[in-house]
């Protein structure tokens, strides 16, 4: 459990309410305490590549990225495309968490290298479940891969 606890989860979500609900869902289980919330794509890219406000942060690679698609400035697709084309970030598992059920979004996300695509349910409990499962699954896979 310690290993999981020290793993950093990146939540990229412009809606603060959705972000709070998601984080609460993950934290309820007291498993994932290190969650970093980034409000849009631009911030996410700055954080990942240690630019701008994040230029001085500790160089820790996040273990999982939960990525919303529709965001101001730089949207989720752009973030996904950027980090999947960069060797240093390519291996980080990305779970798309979005309200969009549009088929073209699903197809495009997988094309760009998303590891999973989750439609945000209206129900809070469902949302927490989705976040937890995605977190467990990808962290477990990632841990195995990095060993």
């Amino acid at each position: 459990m310690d290993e999981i606890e020290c793993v950093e989860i990146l939540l990229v979500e412009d809606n603060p309410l959705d972000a709070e609900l998601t984080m609460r869902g993950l934290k309820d289980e007291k498993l994932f305490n290190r969650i970093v919330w980034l409000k849009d794509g631009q911030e996410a890219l700055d954080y990942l590549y240690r630019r701008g406000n994040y230029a001085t942060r500790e160089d820790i690679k996040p273990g999982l990225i939960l990525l919303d698609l529709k965001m101001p400035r730089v949207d989720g697709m752009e973030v996904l495309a950027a980090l999947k084309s960069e060797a240093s970030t390519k291996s980080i598992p990305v779970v798309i968490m979005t309200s969009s059920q549009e088929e073209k979004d699903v197809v495009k996300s997988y094309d760009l290298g998303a590891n999973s695509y989750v439609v945000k349910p209206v129900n809070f409990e469902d949302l927490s479940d989705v976040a937890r499962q995605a977190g467990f699954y990808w962290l477990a896979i990632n841990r195995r891969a990095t060993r």
Partner: protein
Amino acid sequence: MIFKRPLKSIRLKMLLVLGAVSLLALVVSGTAMMFNDWRSHREVLVGQLNTLADVVSRASAPALSFDDQKAANENLALMAAAPAIKAAALYSAKGVLFAKYIRTGGGAAALPKLPESDGLRAAGDSLVLFKRVIDNNEILGTLYVETINDQKDRMLASLEILLAVLGASMLLAFLVSTQLQKAVTGPILAVADVARQVVDNRDFTLRAKTVSQDETAVLVKAFNAMLDELERRAADLETANRQMAQEVVDRGLAQEALQVSERRYRVLVTTIAAVTWVADTQGAWNEDVSEWTAYTGQRKEEYAGLKWWQAFHADDRATVAQIWERNIAEPLEIVVRLWHQPSGEYRFVSVRAVPNIEGDGTVAEWIGSVSDIHDKRMIEEEVRTLNAELEQRVTVRTAQLEEANHELESFSYSVSHDLRAPVRAVSGFSRILAHDHGHQLGDEGNRLLNIIQGESVRMGALIDDLLTFSRLGRKAIQPSLLNMQDIASSVLHGLTVQYEGTQPTFVKGTLPSAYGDRALITQVWTNLLSNALKFSAKRDQPVIEVGAISEENEYVYFVRDNGAGFDPRYKAKLFGVFQRLHDATEFSGTGVGLALVQRIVTRHGGRVWADSVIDEGATFCFTLPKEVADGRN
């Protein structure tokens, strides 16, 4: 005709030939016999006379030398023994009559006064002989003897006999020829008779009979063969005649048809064309074109030759000239403006010209027409303008529609993303409130919080269904042959596995395969079967039946249940979006399912309908065409 009197002709010829031959033979032989008789008789006569004269002269020689007249007369009297002697005389050497004998009643001529030289000559009916009486080379005197010359009578008698023989011969020849005719000319005449009948009656079936085996048989055979040939020819001729007669009739009909056609053509020409004209190879008009004058006001001297082109609009004359200069022997048609005198304006006309091409391929002349198409042209232009406007409007409308579609798409996207977010927040935070502060709210507070949570969930479901519905309107149908049996079975299986109520009894009929979009048709089955399951849930023993009927052009699939059913009065509202015929507390649902079914089936080119009796169940039907749906409904 040439056979006019054949019988007489041939008979006469036969008779003539036979008669002539007999006559000739008889005359020649008779003449020869008579001549021979006449000569031999004369020789006998002369011989007798000479002998007599010789005897008498010898006997009279002494009498003369002794000048004994008495003895000389006695000697001469001896002549009486020869009845043919008419008279006799002795002349002395001095030529004086010395003795004479004249037969009494003998008709003797007078005695010559003087003796003549020796010789025999005819004198009237007598022969007269003078002979010297010589003794010892001394001429003593001359003997004269006159004797009857009966040669003429003898010849006459012979001639009589000859004539009698000739008569008899001719009679005989006639009889023989009559008999011969039967044998020889009979068959020929029979042939001739048949020939005459054939000619007179035109009956070529007649045949001559073979009577004998000689050359006439050959003739008859040849004649019959000729008749055969004639009969065949006549038949052929008759057939040919009949055909020709028919042909004549046909030609007559054709001629008549041609005339009718020509008349029609003329009427047609005058009705469809304002002007018809004929031009030579150079395009010059040489004939009267009265309609042209009526139309353009040009008199003949104004349009004759090539001047007619001046009636065209100045801007179009170049076109006319250009067309003519091309000089191609092909029909041509141009539309130009022509001066119209009655209305005083240029009007659009269609000028057509067709080359009249001769056998050798050269153009003899051009035949043409001028038709007023002004009104038609104006209407066409108007139509064209209207069409262009319409097209423009369609383009604009299409662009607007596309924009609207695009807007709708972004709207749906916004709905899916932005509308769900607040609902999610309401749901989520009310849950947190209940979780973290539920104990402070009391029973009533928790009840209200539950309502908020339940309704936010329902709101989410409505949004999801609405999104699905709008997405279906945009999704392209990808048809393939669907095994309806498999689809319905797997949908049913999926539904019943999760189903917690009384397991229904399924009656499965045969479901034929049809063309459709797999995902969408699966959705149709899912919605209809889940409805059936839902509305029959309150039955003790729910029964759900699926089946299909094959119609001419489509398959009719149906899902029947024995559930609550619906009031048939509201049938029309059944398939509307968010239309519900049941209370939400009675049966859950958003009211989108059947609207979705209708939308999918309609887009496949099918129909949907339902029938029901309240509390006895409902039957939902949908059709799919047997032909591949194009998916662009």
